[in-house]
Protein backbone atom coordinates (compact mmCIF):
# COMPACT_ATOMS: atom_id res chain seq x y z
CA UNK A 1 0.00 0.00 0.00
CA UNK A 2 1.25 3.42 -0.88
CA UNK A 3 1.15 6.02 1.80
CA UNK A 4 -1.63 8.38 0.78
CA UNK A 5 -2.30 11.91 1.91
CA UNK A 6 -4.84 12.33 4.70
CA UNK A 7 -8.14 13.54 3.26
CA UNK A 8 -8.81 16.85 4.98
CA UNK A 9 -11.13 19.20 3.13
CA UNK A 10 -9.83 22.12 5.10
CA UNK A 11 -6.29 21.40 3.95
CA UNK A 12 -7.42 20.68 0.42
CA UNK A 13 -9.16 24.04 0.17
CA UNK A 14 -5.85 25.71 0.98
CA UNK A 15 -4.48 24.21 -2.23
CA UNK A 16 -6.99 26.03 -4.43
CA UNK A 17 -6.35 29.77 -4.66
CA UNK A 18 -9.44 30.47 -6.74
CA UNK A 19 -11.72 29.29 -3.95
CA UNK A 20 -10.53 32.16 -1.79
CA UNK A 21 -12.38 34.96 -3.52
CA UNK A 22 -15.40 37.13 -3.13
CA UNK A 23 -18.18 37.35 -5.67
CA UNK A 24 -20.35 40.44 -5.26
CA UNK A 25 -18.65 40.79 -1.88
CA UNK A 26 -19.68 37.29 -0.81
CA UNK A 27 -17.58 34.17 -0.37
CA UNK A 28 -17.57 32.16 -3.54
CA UNK A 29 -19.42 28.87 -3.28
CA UNK A 30 -18.42 26.96 -6.38
CA UNK A 31 -20.88 24.22 -7.27
CA UNK A 32 -20.24 24.18 -11.01
CA UNK A 33 -17.56 21.52 -11.03
CA UNK A 34 -19.33 19.46 -13.64
CA UNK A 35 -18.65 22.29 -16.07
CA UNK A 36 -15.06 22.80 -15.00
CA UNK A 37 -13.05 22.38 -11.83
CA UNK A 38 -10.79 24.83 -10.07
CA UNK A 39 -7.02 24.26 -10.17
CA UNK A 40 -4.63 23.53 -7.31
CA UNK A 41 -1.56 25.68 -6.72
CA UNK A 42 0.69 22.83 -7.85
CA UNK A 43 -0.87 22.96 -11.31
CA UNK A 44 -0.59 26.75 -11.42
CA UNK A 45 3.04 26.49 -10.39
CA UNK A 46 3.81 23.94 -13.04
CA UNK A 47 2.25 26.09 -15.74
CA UNK A 48 4.28 29.03 -14.59
CA UNK A 49 7.43 26.97 -14.37
CA UNK A 50 6.94 25.57 -17.85
CA UNK A 51 6.51 28.94 -19.50
CA UNK A 52 9.22 30.68 -17.56
CA UNK A 53 11.85 27.93 -17.51
CA UNK A 54 11.25 25.01 -19.85
CA UNK A 55 9.27 26.47 -22.73
CA UNK A 56 10.28 24.96 -26.05
CA UNK A 57 8.76 22.97 -28.83
CA UNK A 58 9.07 19.23 -28.44
CA UNK A 59 10.00 16.00 -30.19
CA UNK A 60 12.11 17.46 -32.93
CA UNK A 61 14.69 19.53 -31.13
CA UNK A 62 18.15 18.46 -30.04
CA UNK A 63 18.67 21.46 -27.79
CA UNK A 64 18.41 21.33 -24.04
CA UNK A 65 15.09 23.13 -23.56
CA UNK A 66 13.42 21.09 -26.23
CA UNK A 67 14.63 17.87 -24.67
CA UNK A 68 13.55 18.98 -21.22
CA UNK A 69 10.08 19.87 -22.47
CA UNK A 70 9.86 16.63 -24.42
CA UNK A 71 10.85 14.58 -21.40
CA UNK A 72 8.25 16.27 -19.24
CA UNK A 73 5.55 15.86 -21.86
CA UNK A 74 6.31 12.18 -22.29
CA UNK A 75 6.60 11.66 -18.53
CA UNK A 76 3.14 13.11 -18.18
CA UNK A 77 1.86 10.65 -20.74
CA UNK A 78 3.29 7.87 -18.58
CA UNK A 79 1.75 9.29 -15.42
CA UNK A 80 -1.63 9.28 -17.13
CA UNK A 81 -1.12 5.77 -18.46
CA UNK A 82 -0.40 4.56 -14.95
CA UNK A 83 -3.40 6.44 -13.56
CA UNK A 84 -5.72 4.71 -16.03
CA UNK A 85 -3.75 1.47 -15.86
CA UNK A 86 -3.30 1.42 -19.63
CA UNK A 87 -1.12 -1.43 -20.86
CA UNK A 88 1.30 0.98 -22.52
CA UNK A 89 1.71 4.74 -22.62
CA UNK A 90 1.37 4.55 -26.39
CA UNK A 91 -2.34 4.07 -25.82
CA UNK A 92 -2.58 7.59 -24.39
CA UNK A 93 -3.37 10.18 -27.04
CA UNK A 94 -3.43 13.84 -26.07
CA UNK A 95 -6.48 15.64 -27.43
CA UNK A 96 -8.10 19.04 -26.95
CA UNK A 97 -10.70 17.48 -24.66
CA UNK A 98 -13.43 14.88 -24.52
CA UNK A 99 -15.27 16.37 -27.49
CA UNK A 100 -12.14 16.32 -29.63
CA UNK A 101 -11.48 12.72 -28.63
CA UNK A 102 -14.98 11.53 -29.50
CA UNK A 103 -14.75 13.28 -32.85
CA UNK A 104 -11.41 11.60 -33.47
CA UNK A 105 -12.95 8.18 -32.86
CA UNK A 106 -16.09 8.99 -34.84
CA UNK A 107 -14.00 10.09 -37.79
CA UNK A 108 -11.17 7.62 -37.67
CA UNK A 109 -12.72 4.45 -36.28
CA UNK A 110 -15.74 5.56 -38.27
CA UNK A 111 -13.78 4.99 -41.46
CA UNK A 112 -13.99 1.27 -40.70
CA UNK A 113 -17.82 1.35 -40.74
CA UNK A 114 -20.01 0.39 -43.69
CA UNK A 115 -23.44 1.36 -44.90
CA UNK A 116 -26.10 -0.22 -42.72
CA UNK A 117 -23.91 -0.51 -39.64
CA UNK A 118 -25.26 0.88 -36.41
CA UNK A 119 -24.00 3.07 -33.59
CA UNK A 120 -25.66 2.77 -30.20
CA UNK A 121 -25.70 5.56 -27.61
CA UNK A 122 -27.92 6.23 -24.62
CA UNK A 123 -30.65 8.73 -23.87
CA UNK A 124 -28.55 10.49 -21.24
CA UNK A 125 -25.58 11.47 -23.39
CA UNK A 126 -23.95 14.88 -23.56
CA UNK A 127 -24.20 16.57 -26.98
CA UNK A 128 -20.53 15.75 -27.45
CA UNK A 129 -21.41 12.08 -27.34
CA UNK A 130 -24.38 12.49 -29.71
CA UNK A 131 -23.52 14.90 -32.50
CA UNK A 132 -20.23 13.29 -33.67
CA UNK A 133 -22.10 9.99 -34.06
CA UNK A 134 -24.92 11.68 -35.93
CA UNK A 135 -22.36 13.19 -38.27
CA UNK A 136 -20.67 9.81 -38.70
CA UNK A 137 -23.98 8.08 -39.40
CA UNK A 138 -24.83 10.67 -42.00
CA UNK A 139 -21.42 10.37 -43.66
CA UNK A 140 -21.38 6.58 -43.69
CA UNK A 141 -25.11 5.95 -44.08
CA UNK A 142 -25.27 4.17 -40.74
CA UNK A 143 -28.03 4.47 -38.20
CA UNK A 144 -27.99 5.78 -34.69
CA UNK A 145 -29.86 3.86 -31.99
CA UNK A 146 -30.63 5.21 -28.55
CA UNK A 147 -30.97 3.08 -25.42
CA UNK A 148 -33.77 4.72 -23.38
CA UNK A 149 -33.90 5.56 -19.67
CA UNK A 150 -36.58 5.40 -17.01
CA UNK A 151 -37.95 8.33 -14.97
CA UNK A 152 -35.27 7.78 -12.34
CA UNK A 153 -32.64 8.48 -14.93
CA UNK A 154 -31.40 4.92 -15.23
CA UNK A 155 -30.67 3.02 -18.42
CA UNK A 156 -33.30 0.45 -19.38
CA UNK A 157 -30.80 -2.36 -19.31
CA UNK A 158 -33.52 -4.99 -19.52
CA UNK A 159 -34.42 -3.67 -22.97
CA UNK A 160 -30.90 -3.42 -24.34
CA UNK A 161 -31.29 -6.44 -26.60
CA UNK A 162 -33.81 -4.51 -28.64
CA UNK A 163 -31.16 -1.93 -29.43
CA UNK A 164 -27.93 -3.84 -29.81
CA UNK A 165 -27.23 -6.46 -32.43
CA UNK A 166 -24.53 -7.80 -34.70
CA UNK A 167 -25.02 -4.63 -36.75
CA UNK A 168 -23.86 -2.49 -33.85
CA UNK A 169 -20.25 -1.52 -34.41
CA UNK A 170 -19.87 1.13 -31.72
CA UNK A 171 -21.58 1.43 -28.35
CA UNK A 172 -20.80 4.82 -26.79
CA UNK A 173 -22.04 5.74 -23.34
CA UNK A 174 -21.22 8.01 -20.48
CA UNK A 175 -19.81 6.62 -17.28
CA UNK A 176 -21.55 9.27 -15.14
CA UNK A 177 -24.32 11.51 -16.42
CA UNK A 178 -23.35 15.17 -16.21
CA UNK A 179 -26.99 16.15 -15.74
CA UNK A 180 -28.36 13.43 -13.48
CA UNK A 181 -25.31 12.08 -11.69
CA UNK A 182 -26.34 8.53 -12.57
CA UNK A 183 -23.40 6.12 -12.46
CA UNK A 184 -23.80 3.59 -15.24
CA UNK A 185 -22.72 -0.05 -14.84
CA UNK A 186 -20.05 0.36 -17.45
CA UNK A 187 -18.30 -2.94 -17.01
CA UNK A 188 -21.55 -4.65 -17.86
CA UNK A 189 -22.11 -2.33 -20.82
CA UNK A 190 -18.63 -3.05 -22.15
CA UNK A 191 -19.36 -6.76 -21.94
CA UNK A 192 -22.62 -6.27 -23.76
CA UNK A 193 -20.86 -4.40 -26.55
CA UNK A 194 -18.24 -7.11 -26.90
CA UNK A 195 -20.85 -9.84 -26.88
CA UNK A 196 -22.11 -8.35 -30.16
CA UNK A 197 -18.69 -7.51 -31.54
CA UNK A 198 -19.01 -3.77 -31.03
CA UNK A 199 -16.35 -1.53 -29.52
CA UNK A 200 -17.21 0.21 -26.27
CA UNK A 201 -16.49 3.93 -26.03
CA UNK A 202 -16.68 5.29 -22.48
CA UNK A 203 -17.23 9.03 -22.04
CA UNK A 204 -15.32 9.58 -18.83
CA UNK A 205 -15.67 13.37 -18.71
CA UNK A 206 -17.61 13.08 -15.44
CA UNK A 207 -15.97 10.03 -13.93
CA UNK A 208 -12.22 10.55 -14.05
CA UNK A 209 -12.41 13.05 -11.18
CA UNK A 210 -14.79 10.98 -9.07
CA UNK A 211 -13.83 7.33 -9.42
CA UNK A 212 -10.72 5.21 -9.85
CA UNK A 213 -10.48 4.01 -13.45
CA UNK A 214 -8.78 0.85 -14.60
CA UNK A 215 -9.20 0.56 -18.33
CA UNK A 216 -7.82 -2.95 -18.43
CA UNK A 217 -10.22 -4.15 -15.80
CA UNK A 218 -13.13 -2.35 -17.49
CA UNK A 219 -11.88 -3.78 -20.75
CA UNK A 220 -13.30 -0.78 -22.63
CA UNK A 221 -11.94 -0.05 -26.09
CA UNK A 222 -11.83 3.71 -25.65
CA UNK A 223 -12.04 6.00 -22.64
CA UNK A 224 -12.09 9.79 -22.86
CA UNK A 225 -11.73 12.69 -20.48
CA UNK A 226 -11.02 16.43 -20.34
CA UNK A 227 -8.18 17.96 -18.37
CA UNK A 228 -10.13 20.99 -17.24
CA UNK A 229 -12.66 18.89 -15.34
CA UNK A 230 -10.01 16.98 -13.41
CA UNK A 231 -8.22 19.96 -11.82
CA UNK A 232 -6.03 20.45 -14.88
CA UNK A 233 -5.65 23.08 -17.60
CA UNK A 234 -8.07 23.90 -20.40
CA UNK A 235 -7.46 22.83 -23.98
CA UNK A 236 -6.12 19.38 -23.17
CA UNK A 237 -7.71 16.00 -22.81
CA UNK A 238 -6.97 12.34 -23.20
CA UNK A 239 -8.13 9.60 -25.46
CA UNK A 240 -7.23 6.16 -24.23
CA UNK A 241 -7.59 3.54 -26.94
CA UNK A 242 -6.62 -0.09 -27.11
CA UNK A 243 -3.47 -0.43 -29.14
CA UNK A 244 -5.02 -2.91 -31.56
CA UNK A 245 -7.67 -0.36 -32.56
CA UNK A 246 -5.38 2.61 -32.67
CA UNK A 247 -3.08 0.66 -34.96
CA UNK A 248 -5.97 -0.13 -37.30
CA UNK A 249 -7.42 3.35 -37.39
CA UNK A 250 -6.37 5.84 -40.08
CA UNK A 251 -4.99 9.17 -38.85
CA UNK A 252 -7.48 11.93 -38.11
CA UNK A 253 -5.50 15.10 -38.74
CA UNK A 254 -2.44 15.53 -40.93
CA UNK A 255 0.59 17.67 -40.17
CA UNK A 256 3.90 17.85 -38.42
CA UNK A 257 4.88 15.15 -35.91
CA UNK A 258 2.35 12.57 -37.12
CA UNK A 259 4.35 11.52 -40.15
CA UNK A 260 7.29 9.28 -40.75
CA UNK A 261 8.13 10.48 -44.22
CA UNK A 262 6.45 13.02 -46.49
CA UNK A 263 6.87 13.28 -50.20
CA UNK A 264 4.38 14.88 -52.53
CA UNK A 265 3.61 11.44 -53.90
CA UNK A 266 3.28 9.48 -50.71
CA UNK A 267 3.22 10.06 -47.00
CA UNK A 268 3.80 7.40 -44.37
CA UNK A 269 2.55 7.86 -40.86
CA UNK A 270 4.37 7.81 -37.58
CA UNK A 271 3.87 5.23 -34.87
CA UNK A 272 1.58 5.51 -31.85
CA UNK A 273 0.77 7.77 -30.12
CA UNK A 274 2.19 10.33 -32.54
CA UNK A 275 0.09 9.18 -35.48
CA UNK A 276 -2.86 10.89 -33.78
CA UNK A 277 -1.06 13.99 -32.58
CA UNK A 278 -0.63 16.23 -35.60
CA UNK A 279 0.96 19.63 -35.15
CA UNK A 280 2.51 21.20 -32.10
CA UNK A 281 0.53 19.79 -29.18
CA UNK A 282 -0.67 21.77 -26.18
CA UNK A 283 2.68 21.24 -24.52
CA UNK A 284 2.01 23.18 -21.32
CA UNK A 285 -1.40 21.54 -21.09
CA UNK A 286 -0.03 18.04 -21.49
CA UNK A 287 2.67 18.54 -18.88
CA UNK A 288 0.38 20.22 -16.38
CA UNK A 289 -2.42 17.70 -16.81
CA UNK A 290 0.14 15.23 -15.51
CA UNK A 291 0.57 17.46 -12.46
CA UNK A 292 -3.19 17.54 -11.92
CA UNK A 293 -3.28 13.76 -12.04
CA UNK A 294 -0.41 13.66 -9.57
CA UNK A 295 -2.36 16.00 -7.30
CA UNK A 296 -5.34 13.68 -7.37
CA UNK A 297 -3.17 10.61 -6.93
CA UNK A 298 -1.97 11.84 -3.56
CA UNK A 299 -5.29 10.80 -2.13
CA UNK A 300 -6.93 7.50 -1.61
CA UNK A 301 -9.73 7.52 -4.17
CA UNK A 302 -12.01 5.87 -1.71
CA UNK A 303 -11.84 9.00 0.47
CA UNK A 304 -12.71 11.23 -2.46
CA UNK A 305 -15.68 9.09 -3.45
CA UNK A 306 -16.93 8.91 0.10
CA UNK A 307 -16.72 12.66 0.56
CA UNK A 308 -18.40 13.50 -2.74
CA UNK A 309 -21.18 10.99 -2.27
CA UNK A 310 -21.75 12.33 1.23
CA UNK A 311 -22.08 15.85 -0.21
CA UNK A 312 -24.47 14.65 -2.89
CA UNK A 313 -26.68 12.85 -0.38
CA UNK A 314 -26.57 15.71 2.08
CA UNK A 315 -27.58 18.29 -0.52
CA UNK A 316 -30.30 16.04 -1.85
CA UNK A 317 -31.76 15.35 1.56
CA UNK A 318 -31.95 19.04 2.38
CA UNK A 319 -33.40 19.90 -1.03
CA UNK A 320 -36.19 17.40 -0.49
CA UNK A 321 -37.42 19.58 2.38
CA UNK A 322 -38.48 22.23 -0.15
CA UNK A 323 -42.07 22.13 -1.23
CA UNK A 324 -42.55 21.70 -4.97
CA UNK A 325 -39.05 20.40 -5.55
CA UNK A 326 -38.45 17.96 -8.38
CA UNK A 327 -35.11 16.19 -8.40
CA UNK A 328 -34.02 14.69 -11.70
CA UNK A 329 -32.04 11.51 -11.50
CA UNK A 330 -32.98 9.37 -8.56
CA UNK A 331 -30.86 6.36 -9.22
CA UNK A 332 -29.35 4.64 -6.22
CA UNK A 333 -26.07 4.74 -8.14
CA UNK A 334 -25.51 8.42 -8.27
CA UNK A 335 -22.73 10.78 -7.34
CA UNK A 336 -21.43 14.29 -7.61
CA UNK A 337 -24.49 15.90 -9.15
CA UNK A 338 -27.89 17.10 -7.94
CA UNK A 339 -30.17 18.46 -10.63
CA UNK A 340 -33.54 19.95 -9.71
CA UNK A 341 -36.30 22.45 -10.29
CA UNK A 342 -38.78 24.17 -8.05
CA UNK A 343 -42.16 23.93 -9.70
CA UNK A 344 -43.34 27.24 -11.07
CA UNK A 345 -39.86 28.74 -11.01
CA UNK A 346 -37.63 28.96 -14.07
CA UNK A 347 -34.13 27.60 -13.45
CA UNK A 348 -32.61 30.77 -14.88
CA UNK A 349 -34.33 32.86 -12.21
CA UNK A 350 -33.11 30.65 -9.42
CA UNK A 351 -29.59 30.56 -10.85
CA UNK A 352 -29.50 34.34 -11.11
CA UNK A 353 -30.51 34.90 -7.50
CA UNK A 354 -28.14 32.22 -6.21
CA UNK A 355 -25.36 33.87 -8.17
CA UNK A 356 -26.12 37.17 -6.46
CA UNK A 357 -25.42 35.37 -3.19
CA UNK A 358 -22.05 34.15 -4.40
CA UNK A 359 -23.18 30.66 -5.34
CA UNK A 360 -22.14 29.32 -8.74
CA UNK A 361 -24.55 26.67 -9.96
CA UNK A 362 -25.29 25.80 -13.55
CA UNK A 363 -28.73 26.28 -15.06
CA UNK A 364 -30.00 25.24 -18.45
CA UNK A 365 -29.92 22.08 -20.49
CA UNK A 366 -26.33 21.12 -19.61
CA UNK A 367 -25.75 20.13 -23.24
CA UNK A 368 -28.24 17.31 -22.86
CA UNK A 369 -31.27 18.65 -24.71
CA UNK A 370 -32.70 15.19 -25.47
CA UNK A 371 -32.76 14.55 -21.73
CA UNK A 372 -34.60 17.84 -21.18
CA UNK A 373 -37.10 16.81 -23.83
CA UNK A 374 -37.53 13.51 -22.03
CA UNK A 375 -38.41 15.29 -18.79
CA UNK A 376 -40.30 17.99 -20.72
CA UNK A 377 -38.46 20.84 -19.07
CA UNK A 378 -36.41 23.76 -20.42
CA UNK A 379 -33.58 23.07 -18.02
CA UNK A 380 -32.61 22.38 -14.45
CA UNK A 381 -30.56 23.92 -11.69
CA UNK A 382 -27.50 21.74 -11.19
CA UNK A 383 -25.12 21.56 -8.27
CA UNK A 384 -22.02 19.52 -9.01
CA UNK A 385 -19.42 18.84 -6.39
CA UNK A 386 -15.68 18.45 -6.18
CA UNK A 387 -13.35 17.18 -3.51
CA UNK A 388 -12.99 20.68 -2.02
CA UNK A 389 -16.67 21.34 -1.36
CA UNK A 390 -18.06 21.27 2.18
CA UNK A 391 -21.26 20.64 4.09
CA UNK A 392 -21.12 24.23 5.29
CA UNK A 393 -21.29 25.40 1.70
CA UNK A 394 -24.37 23.27 1.19
CA UNK A 395 -25.96 24.72 4.32
CA UNK A 396 -25.35 28.19 2.98
CA UNK A 397 -26.69 27.16 -0.42
CA UNK A 398 -29.89 25.86 1.19
CA UNK A 399 -30.49 29.13 3.03
CA UNK A 400 -29.81 31.03 -0.20
CA UNK A 401 -32.34 28.78 -1.93
CA UNK A 402 -34.83 29.67 0.73
CA UNK A 403 -34.34 33.37 0.21
CA UNK A 404 -34.43 33.06 -3.59
CA UNK A 405 -37.65 31.09 -3.60
CA UNK A 406 -39.27 33.59 -1.28
CA UNK A 407 -38.31 36.38 -3.64
CA UNK A 408 -39.63 34.57 -6.69
CA UNK A 409 -42.87 33.08 -5.42
Amino acid sequence: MENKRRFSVREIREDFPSLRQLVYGKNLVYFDNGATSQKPQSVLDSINKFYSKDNANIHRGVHHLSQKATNEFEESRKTIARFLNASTHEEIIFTKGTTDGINLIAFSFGELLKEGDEVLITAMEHHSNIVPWQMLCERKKCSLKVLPINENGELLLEEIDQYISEKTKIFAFTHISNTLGTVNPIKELVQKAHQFGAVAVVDGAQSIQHKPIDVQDLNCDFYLFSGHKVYGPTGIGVLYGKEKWLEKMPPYQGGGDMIKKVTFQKTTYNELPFKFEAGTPHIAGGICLGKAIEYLSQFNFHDIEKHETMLTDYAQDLLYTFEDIVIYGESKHKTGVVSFNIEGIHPFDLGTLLDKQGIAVRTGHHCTQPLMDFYKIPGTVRCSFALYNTKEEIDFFISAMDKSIRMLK
Partner: protein
Amino acid sequence: MSIEEKQKQIIEDFELLDDWELKYEHIIELGKSLPQIEDKKKTESNLIEGCQSKVWLDSVLKENKLYFFADSDAIITKGIIALLIDVFNGQSPEDILNSEVYFINQIGLQEHLSPTRANGLLSMVKKIKMEAIKNATVN
Protein backbone atom coordinates in the same frame (compact mmCIF):
# COMPACT_ATOMS: atom_id res chain seq x y z
CA MET B 1 -40.83 61.41 -22.45
CA SER B 2 -37.93 60.72 -24.81
CA ILE B 3 -35.90 57.51 -24.75
CA GLU B 4 -33.17 59.49 -23.06
CA GLU B 5 -35.49 60.78 -20.35
CA LYS B 6 -36.98 57.33 -19.79
CA GLN B 7 -33.57 55.83 -19.22
CA LYS B 8 -32.62 58.62 -16.81
CA GLN B 9 -35.85 58.04 -14.94
CA ILE B 10 -35.14 54.32 -14.55
CA ILE B 11 -31.60 54.97 -13.40
CA GLU B 12 -32.93 57.38 -10.77
CA ASP B 13 -35.53 54.88 -9.63
CA PHE B 14 -32.89 52.22 -9.20
CA GLU B 15 -30.60 54.50 -7.22
CA LEU B 16 -33.07 54.18 -4.36
CA LEU B 17 -32.73 50.40 -4.44
CA ASP B 18 -29.40 50.12 -2.80
CA ASP B 19 -28.86 46.43 -2.47
CA TRP B 20 -29.24 43.53 -4.84
CA GLU B 21 -32.31 42.18 -3.06
CA LEU B 22 -34.33 45.34 -3.43
CA LYS B 23 -33.25 45.65 -7.03
CA TYR B 24 -34.20 42.12 -7.94
CA GLU B 25 -37.44 42.26 -5.96
CA HIS B 26 -38.36 45.27 -8.04
CA ILE B 27 -37.47 43.54 -11.28
CA ILE B 28 -39.39 40.43 -10.30
CA GLU B 29 -42.35 42.67 -9.49
CA LEU B 30 -42.12 44.30 -12.91
CA GLY B 31 -41.89 40.87 -14.51
CA LYS B 32 -44.99 39.68 -12.73
CA SER B 33 -47.02 42.70 -13.68
CA LEU B 34 -46.08 42.73 -17.36
CA PRO B 35 -49.11 41.36 -19.18
CA GLN B 36 -48.47 37.95 -20.72
CA ILE B 37 -48.82 37.84 -24.46
CA GLU B 38 -51.34 35.54 -26.01
CA ASP B 39 -50.15 32.06 -26.87
CA LYS B 40 -50.94 32.56 -30.54
CA LYS B 41 -48.48 35.48 -30.59
CA LYS B 42 -45.76 33.16 -29.31
CA THR B 43 -44.76 32.23 -32.82
CA GLU B 44 -41.42 31.02 -34.10
CA SER B 45 -40.76 34.35 -35.75
CA ASN B 46 -41.43 36.25 -32.56
CA LEU B 47 -39.17 33.99 -30.58
CA ILE B 48 -35.69 34.98 -29.51
CA GLU B 49 -34.03 31.86 -28.28
CA GLY B 50 -31.38 32.31 -25.64
CA CYS B 51 -29.55 29.37 -24.22
CA GLN B 52 -31.45 29.72 -20.97
CA SER B 53 -34.76 31.49 -21.31
CA LYS B 54 -37.13 32.18 -24.13
CA VAL B 55 -38.24 35.65 -25.10
CA TRP B 56 -41.10 36.54 -27.42
CA LEU B 57 -41.39 39.98 -28.87
CA ASP B 58 -44.07 41.51 -31.01
CA SER B 59 -44.71 45.09 -32.05
CA VAL B 60 -47.32 47.28 -33.68
CA LEU B 61 -46.91 50.65 -35.36
CA LYS B 62 -49.53 53.32 -34.62
CA GLU B 63 -49.14 56.81 -36.06
CA ASN B 64 -45.42 56.28 -36.59
CA LYS B 65 -44.94 55.14 -33.04
CA LEU B 66 -43.91 51.63 -32.08
CA TYR B 67 -45.52 49.65 -29.27
CA PHE B 68 -44.01 46.42 -28.00
CA PHE B 69 -45.47 43.30 -26.45
CA ALA B 70 -43.13 40.79 -24.97
CA ASP B 71 -42.96 37.80 -22.72
CA SER B 72 -40.47 35.35 -21.31
CA ASP B 73 -40.61 32.07 -19.47
CA ALA B 74 -38.19 33.44 -16.87
CA ILE B 75 -39.47 36.12 -14.56
CA ILE B 76 -36.25 38.09 -14.17
CA THR B 77 -35.80 38.23 -17.92
CA LYS B 78 -39.40 39.39 -18.14
CA GLY B 79 -38.75 42.11 -15.59
CA ILE B 80 -35.87 43.48 -17.59
CA ILE B 81 -37.97 43.27 -20.71
CA ALA B 82 -40.61 45.32 -18.95
CA LEU B 83 -38.00 48.01 -18.40
CA LEU B 84 -36.93 47.88 -22.02
CA ILE B 85 -40.47 48.10 -23.28
CA ASP B 86 -41.13 51.01 -20.99
CA VAL B 87 -38.17 52.83 -22.55
CA PHE B 88 -39.17 52.22 -26.14
CA ASN B 89 -42.95 52.15 -26.12
CA GLY B 90 -44.51 55.01 -28.01
CA GLN B 91 -41.27 56.11 -29.65
CA SER B 92 -40.76 56.56 -33.37
CA PRO B 93 -38.74 53.98 -35.29
CA GLU B 94 -36.18 56.65 -36.12
CA ASP B 95 -35.67 57.61 -32.50
CA ILE B 96 -35.35 53.97 -31.52
CA LEU B 97 -32.77 53.39 -34.20
CA ASN B 98 -30.73 56.37 -33.11
CA SER B 99 -30.86 55.53 -29.43
CA GLU B 100 -28.32 53.78 -27.31
CA VAL B 101 -29.39 51.52 -24.49
CA TYR B 102 -27.15 52.28 -21.54
CA PHE B 103 -29.45 52.08 -18.54
CA ILE B 104 -29.02 48.33 -18.05
CA ASN B 105 -25.37 48.81 -17.29
CA GLN B 106 -26.00 51.75 -15.05
CA ILE B 107 -28.56 50.04 -12.86
CA GLY B 108 -26.10 47.23 -12.21
CA LEU B 109 -27.61 44.59 -14.45
CA GLN B 110 -24.68 44.38 -16.84
CA GLU B 111 -24.43 40.66 -16.18
CA HIS B 112 -27.58 40.25 -18.22
CA LEU B 113 -25.91 41.78 -21.25
CA SER B 114 -22.88 39.56 -21.42
CA PRO B 115 -22.24 37.59 -24.58
CA THR B 116 -22.86 34.32 -22.78
CA ARG B 117 -26.04 33.87 -24.73
CA ALA B 118 -27.37 32.88 -21.32
CA ASN B 119 -30.56 34.79 -22.01
CA GLY B 120 -32.03 36.50 -24.98
CA LEU B 121 -31.58 40.03 -23.74
CA LEU B 122 -28.86 41.21 -26.06
CA SER B 123 -30.68 39.66 -28.95
CA MET B 124 -33.80 41.38 -27.76
CA VAL B 125 -32.30 44.83 -27.97
CA LYS B 126 -31.20 43.83 -31.46
CA LYS B 127 -34.69 42.63 -32.29
CA ILE B 128 -36.24 45.90 -31.11
CA LYS B 129 -33.88 47.76 -33.42
CA MET B 130 -34.76 45.39 -36.25
CA GLU B 131 -38.43 46.13 -35.77
CA ALA B 132 -37.55 49.80 -35.91
CA ILE B 133 -35.60 49.35 -39.14
CA LYS B 134 -38.45 47.41 -40.67
CA ASN B 135 -40.91 50.14 -39.84
CA ALA B 136 -38.60 53.00 -40.65
CA THR B 137 -38.02 51.80 -44.21
CA VAL B 138 -41.71 51.15 -44.81
CA ASN B 139 -42.12 54.77 -43.88
